[in-house]
Structure formats: structure tokens, C-alpha cells
């Protein structure tokens, strides 16, 4: 990085100093540099420095865990954008979605990305679970990471479910009405849990407020923390690798 020729040009020298202070190592020319790059970069150090060749074959993970995480990031970013416009009130929610679609620049495509990524994430997380099962990757020492995984599947479903209500159109309100009715058959807990979920007996403003808060703050936060633990354990337990 600090080659002598830069010293003649103060701007280049400064740029090189700044670059060098951010990225301590260059592109991987040798395994040693590659190892240091991975170790010293915050975003890369989630990985071990070396991985088993068989574990990173695309045919082994099918990228499904990674894609689930990627979709989570895409949802966070597009969701942030939607939050600039969306108003969680029974009277204004529907109109604010219309505004997102027809007034906000790129609003329509942002809403579409958010919606389709949400569906896709339910699918990729579920398929990821299936691949982990079929490969027996939950066996010791990874038992507990499977348990964290099931919590993540639940969080993913709840995120999708709470988001479903927010547009406050016929599809949203009735799907949530039917969905929450499904939960009310448990003895005692059933009706109570429905009441707690909706903040009342019907899908109204208090349900919208609760779903909104869960959807934009509580569930993403819990999900993120669980994902961090999940990844940490994938690393610490060692990746299962090919059969």
C-alpha cells in the first residue's frame, strides 16, 4: 500500500493513508493476507478464517441460510423506506399505502420488494430448515442451534403475519381476522391470547397499533439478536460439512 511513488503526490498519499486506515490489508494475494483480511474486517470476521471445502459447496447449503439473512437485510432497508410514509392509523393507513404506490418516488417498487422479499423469506427459511434436517446437521454438537432456528422460523412467520395487517385493506383485515381466529381454540389460553394479540375483540385500531409496533421494532430486534447467536454458534460449533 505505502509504495514510495505516492509520496510525490500529497493527495494520493493522503488518500492512501485514509484507505489504509480503513482497510488494513489489501486484496488477498496470498493465503496469509487473505486470513488477515478476514480477521481484521468487522463484516468478514463473522466467518472463520479457513473453512472446509465441502462445507461451502453450493450443493451442500444451497445458500439457503445466507439467502434468508440477505432477505432480512433487504426487508430492513425497504421497510425503513416504507416507514417514512406509512401512518399506522385506521383512518390513514390505507391512504398512506396509496401514497407510497403513486406519489413517493420509487415507492411502488419499494413496496413490491418488501412484499415479495417477505414471502421469499418464509420460503427460504423453511427450506433451510428442511436442508438442515435432511443432512442431519442438527446432531451433536449443534442441537441447540436447531432450537434457536425454530425460534427464528417462528419470528419470521410472526413478522410476515404482523406486516400483513398494515395496509388495512380488505385482504389485510380479513386475513388477520381469520388468522387470529385460528388461535382461539385453545382452552382458556386461546381466547385470551387472541384478545391480547388484538388488544380487543375485533381487528381495530388497537390491533393495528400492536401489530405495527411488533412489526417494526420488537420482532426485528428479537430476530436480529437470535440471528447473531445463530451465526455465532454456526461458527463455534464448526460447520457440519459434506456427508
Amino acid at each position, binding site marked *: 500500500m505505502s509504495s514510495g511513488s505516492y509520496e510525490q503526490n500529497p493527495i494520493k498519499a493522503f488518500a492512501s493513508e485514509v484507505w489504509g486506515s480503513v482497510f488494513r490489508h489489501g486484496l*488477498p494475494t496470498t*493465503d496469509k493476507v*487473505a*486470513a488477515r483480511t478476514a480477521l481484521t*474486517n468487522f463484516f*468478514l470476521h463473522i*466467518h*472463520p478464517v*479457513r*473453512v472446509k*471445502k465441502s462445507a*461451502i459447496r453450493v450443493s451442500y447449503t444451497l*445458500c439457503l441460510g*445466507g439467502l434468508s439473512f*440477505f432477505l432480512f437485510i433487504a426487508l430492513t432497508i425497504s421497510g425503513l423506506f416504507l416507514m417514512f410514509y406509512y401512518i399506522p392509523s385506521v383512518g390513514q393507513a*390505507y391512504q398512506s*399505502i396509496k401514497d407510497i404506490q403513486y406519489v413517493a418516488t420509487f415507492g*411502488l*417498487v419499494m413496496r*413490491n*420488494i*418488501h412484499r415479495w*422479499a417477505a*414471502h*421469499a423469506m*418464509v420460503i427460504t427459511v423453511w427450506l433451510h430448515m*428442511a436442508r438442515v*434436517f435432511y*443432512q*442431519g446437521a*442438527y*446432531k*451433536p*454438537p*449443534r442441537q441447540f442451534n*436447531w*432450537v434457536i432456528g*425454530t425460534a427464528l422460523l417462528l419470528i419470521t*412467520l410472526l413478522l*410476515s*403475519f404482523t406486516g400483513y395487517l398494515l*395496509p*388495512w*385493506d*380488505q*385482504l389485510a383485515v*380479513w*386475513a388477520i*381476522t*381469520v*388468522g387470529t381466529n*385460528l*388461535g382461539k*381454540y*385453545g*382452552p382458556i389460553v*386461546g381466547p385470551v391470547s387472541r384478545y391480547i394479540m388484538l388488544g380487543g375483540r*375485533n381487528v381495530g385500531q388497537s390491533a393495528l397499533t400492536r401489530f405495527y409496533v411488533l412489526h417494526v421494532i420488537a420482532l426485528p430486534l428479537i430476530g436480529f439478536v437470535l440471528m447473531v447467536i445463530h451465526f455465532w454458534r454456526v461458527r463455534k*460449533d*464448526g460447520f457440519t460439512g459434506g456427508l
Partner: protein
Amino acid sequence: MAQEASSVRNARRAGMITTRGHTVRTGPELSSTPMVVRSREEEETVVTFPHLVWKEFLAGLAMMVFLLAVSVQINAPLLQPANTAVTPNPAKAPWYFLGLQELLERFPPVMAGVIFPGMVLVGMVLVPYLDRNPSRRPEDRKLAIGLFTVYVTMAVAFVIIGTVFRGPNFSWYWGQVLGHPGLNSKV
């Protein structure tokens, strides 16, 4: 040491050791022995950066392109404003809960709403503790794979049935595949 490693390798090739001896340490011995997470000489490794990072980047890029392509072509649904006085028929839960709705259609509520889903949920969480079989090879896991495949098949079938074959009053309906005009609308 080297001899030991190669004998492990040979044993595995011969199909005698089906779990990886070097990574699997369970039970009380965990606390007393240093844990061997990875052992170098056992399996070929590559540096994460760039090998794995490159694959992750490509997978992310492909997903991004796919999402954008879909989102430019197909709009997310937005129906009429909510109206609690007008119940659409059929009224369906989101697709991933259609399995539950399907069960409720077929079984008494306590079974469909509490016992079955409860069993699936608890069973799912306990999978690693119920399955005592140490082998990861498919031919040693016929029961586990069979049971899970039943679950997968039913889950997928119920979602397809609920989405495509359930019409007014959530009763069986061929109209969506056979194209019966006028009955498909959701209000």
C-alpha cells in the same frame, strides 16, 4: 498422532465411523477436555476470503436481481379499504397459515387448533433431542427422513389446497384451475 488421524480417515472411508469423531464431543467430557473444533489434517480447507465471501456475494447478487425483476413486473396486492361490514368469501388466512385453516376444516377445533399444531411445534423444537441416532448418513436414518418427509409433503399440500382448491365458504372448489368465471373474485 498422524497415524491415528489416518486410521480415523480410513475407518470413515470404510463406512465404520459415520459421525465425525473429531468434532463431536458431547456429554460431561466437554467440560474437562479442551474442545477440538476443527482439526486441520482431517479435511481440506480453503481461506474464507475470497472463496466463501465470493460465493455469498454472487448468491446475494442473484437474489437482488431476482427480487428487482419480480418487483418491477408484479405489484403487491392492495384491495378495497378495510370494511368490517363486508366479509369476503372465502376469507383466507395468509398462505403459510392455510395448513392450520385446512386442519380446522377437517377436525374438531381442539384437535386442529391445539393438539396437532402443539405437537408439531414441540416436536420440531425437540427434534435434536428425540433423534438419538448418531449417524448422518441417509441410509441409517430411514425413520427420521420418512417422518420428516410426511410433514414436508403435508405442509406443502395443505398450502396448495388452501390457495388453489378452496373456494366460497372454504369448501372444495375446482374453479381456479378449471377457470370457472366469476367465482374467483375475493370481493
